[in-house]
């Protein structure tokens, strides 16, 4: 397990480095920040001065060398837009995203496991059909559309929920509900499928031949085995949320990484883009390790 972890860390680092190089050079293709941050009628001298201050005048390769040099000292550079250290800007946004992802995934996991398992015990019966429709709609619906409809219904028509911001607990309800839909649909399908497989497995037959009662057969023998494929999907979905839910965060004015990312890209705030990529990469790496640990806890075959 330790060897695997080391190998994983190295290959992730290699990928991350390649990613940073790519993003660093490619992002500069989106245009000159000076054109964006200075007034339209700014003189060429003012532009020159702006570039000089932010080190944008040197050849890109020199800029990259300098960036790496700073990075080694954990200096992620300044945000052009906010005139603050880029890493601070990113971490601030990341905390919001982390909470959003954590709450959403917890709710999704609990709900999907319950609904999916119950559906699996009642294959083909009304509850199962209902769950299938639910999961189908969930997996098919565009999140921005649900968000808009949600705003129309709950904020505009009934006036129950605020449309954007993060002030109160009420502000969280719509974004979480919208983010809930798709992962719920996907995970529900996997739970149902793997539960059905596990219920038909030979070891369940053994348990019945031993005279084990129905409830332990389901909750002790089946559920733990059925969770193995589910964990992988949960990991994928959580990773997607950690990358920032751009659309939902934009619609609800939620100050998370996704919104920060799109704003920074459109505003050519290169340092923030790079810092955001690194922070989410680290977060996803840690989460993958947690997934591996969960896997190993559930399945002894992986431990050895």
């Amino acid at each position, binding site marked *: 397990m330790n060897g695997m972890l080391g190998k994983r860390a190295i290959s992730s680092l290699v990928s991350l480095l390649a990613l940073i190089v790519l993003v660093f050079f490619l992002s500069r293709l989106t245009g000159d920040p000076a054109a964006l941050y200075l007034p339209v009628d700014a003189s060429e001298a003012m532009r020159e001065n702006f570039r000089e201050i932010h080190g944008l005048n040197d050849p890109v390769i020199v800029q990259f060398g300098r960036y790496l040099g700073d990075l080694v000292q954990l200096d992620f550079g300044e945000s052009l837009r906010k005139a603050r250290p880029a890493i601070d800007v990113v971490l601030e946004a990341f905390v919001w995203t982390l909470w959003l992802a954590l709450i959403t995934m917890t709710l999704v996991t609990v709900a999907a496991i319950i609904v999916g398992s119950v559906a699996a015990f009642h294959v083909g019966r009304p509850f199962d059909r209902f769950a299938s429709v639910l999961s189908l709609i969930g997996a098919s619906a565009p999140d921005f559309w649900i968000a808009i409809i949600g705003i129309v219904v709950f904020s505009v028509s009934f006036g129950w929920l605020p449309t954007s911001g993060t002030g109160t607990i009420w502000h969280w309800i719509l974004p979480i509900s919208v983010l809930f839909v798709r992962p719920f649909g996907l995970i529900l399908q996997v739970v149902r499928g793997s539960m059905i497989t596990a219920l038909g*497995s030979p*070891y369940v037959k053994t*348990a*019945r*031949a031993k*005279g*084990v009662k129905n409830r332990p057969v389901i909750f002790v023998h089946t559920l733990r085995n059925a969770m193995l494929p589910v964990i992988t999907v949960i990991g994928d979905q959580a990773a997607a949320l950690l990358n920032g839910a751009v659309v939902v965060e934009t619609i609800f004015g939620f100050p998370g990484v996704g919104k920060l990312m799109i704003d920074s890209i459109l505003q050519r705030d290169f340092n923030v883009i790079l810092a955001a990529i690194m922070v989410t990469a680290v977060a996803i790496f840690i989460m993958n390790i947690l997934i591996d640990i969960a896997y190993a806890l559930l399945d002894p075959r992986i431990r050895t």
Partner: protein
Amino acid sequence: MTDHLLEVRDLSVQFHTAQGIVRAVNGISWHLDRGETLAILGESGSGKSVSASAIMNLIDMPPGEITSGEILFEGRDLLKASDEERRRLNGKRISMIFQDPLGHLNPVYPVGWQIAETAMAHGRGKAEAYDRALALMERVGIPDARASMGKYPHQFSGGQRQRLMIAMALALKPDILIADEPTTALDVTVQAEVLSLLEELQEETGMGLLLITHDLGVVAEAADRAVVMEGGLVVETGTPRELYHNATHPYTRKLLAAAPGKGAMREPEDGPEAILEVRDLKKDYGGFEALKGVSFDMHAGETLAVVGESGSGKSTIARLVLRLEEASSGTARWKGEDLLTKSPRQMGKLRRQLQMVFQDPTQSLNPHMSVFQIISEAWVIHPDILPKARWPERVAELLDQVGLSPEHAKRYPHQFSGGQRQRIAIARALALEPDLIICDEAVSALDVSIQAQVIDLLGKLRDELGIAFLFIAHDLPVVRDFADRVLVMQRGEIVEQGSVRQIFEQPCAPYTQRLLAAGLDSDPDVQADRRAARLALAGN
């Protein structure tokens, strides 16, 4: 009429499938008494396991349906009992073990807990259940039982897993133990150990043992009485001796005739020089030595059998010689040229001379190709063998040669039975007109009667075409009937080699002796002698 421990009367079970209703068993009756071992003998599709599933309430309904009959346990009809009542009997009064212990043990829980669970499911306290589990693990011979309680199924060998299953089934000293093909997936020496363990436990507890098997040898070794099943019907019942000597039903006779190991042994002639010379062949997988330097010769037209149990490295030889895997060191000279150093291109050309027939024909035939495509692929790859115009004619000829009909060329593999599929695989190998065919457990997945037919076919091809066979098998009786010479392998080494008569009549290596003693014979009298010999061997 209720004096039997367990009695099945007129039981019929059917399953609803795509092809309509399949009658799995049709009005079968049998009974089992205390302290008795009853074998249900049948090939695949005979319905031999169905009554056991019905007894244990393990038939999924739907698609299954019990249409008639009763199952009397101590005079009470189980089919009329509630699910809860039957649950209380399962594991406590009637227990069951299965063919594939790895699949049937829960992979994510320690085995100690799984054994204790039987007792806990029937209301025993945790401490008592665990004590009992420990005692049982010691009783069935798990080494270092206390530490092994916390281990998981994948950490045990196949034989140990079956012992664990037995411990689990016997936790509450049931009156009946149903064993469904309990030794089929095990090596012969392990099979003998597991069977004698079952027998000892039966003597200790006086339970009735229901042994479901396809193996006449198992019946001869272990059963007091046997029920022969075919096509969902009981065709004959009797003691193993009665059945062996005075079988009345044609099916039973056919089954007995098909049992290998009774034909004349072949006498190898000192023929032409070697076509394949293997020297000091080694293979290790990251520290584990699968082959530790194996050397042997093969002559043109000769049949050389390689026997050994799982992990002996016998299949590795085939894979290395055919370059499906790369050897760690050694040479394999084919007509003077070392196969192991050939480039892929050179090897590609040579391949037509050495062909292979795999264990499982279901998996060795591409399901997306028709039989014609499968066989003619040989000529697509090696176009110089046959001009395209002659393909249909030659495919028909080959199909005829392996006992299929030319119309079969248009069909796909899934439309054939297992034995027919293996014939197709043989036809494919013949299409290249090879000098050597390597058979890797080529008949071990087939039913006995089919197995005999395929062996007959291979023998015919050997005589007609002069093809040499490298015949890899774990089943000694088959080897005895078919091979000229035998290599016996154990843990990556050849422990003995010689003519088939020498190996079977005067084995020198202790391992060969043990292997032969562990093998089961379909004749109960021969088996009784062998059993005595085995016990003597164990005593030494």
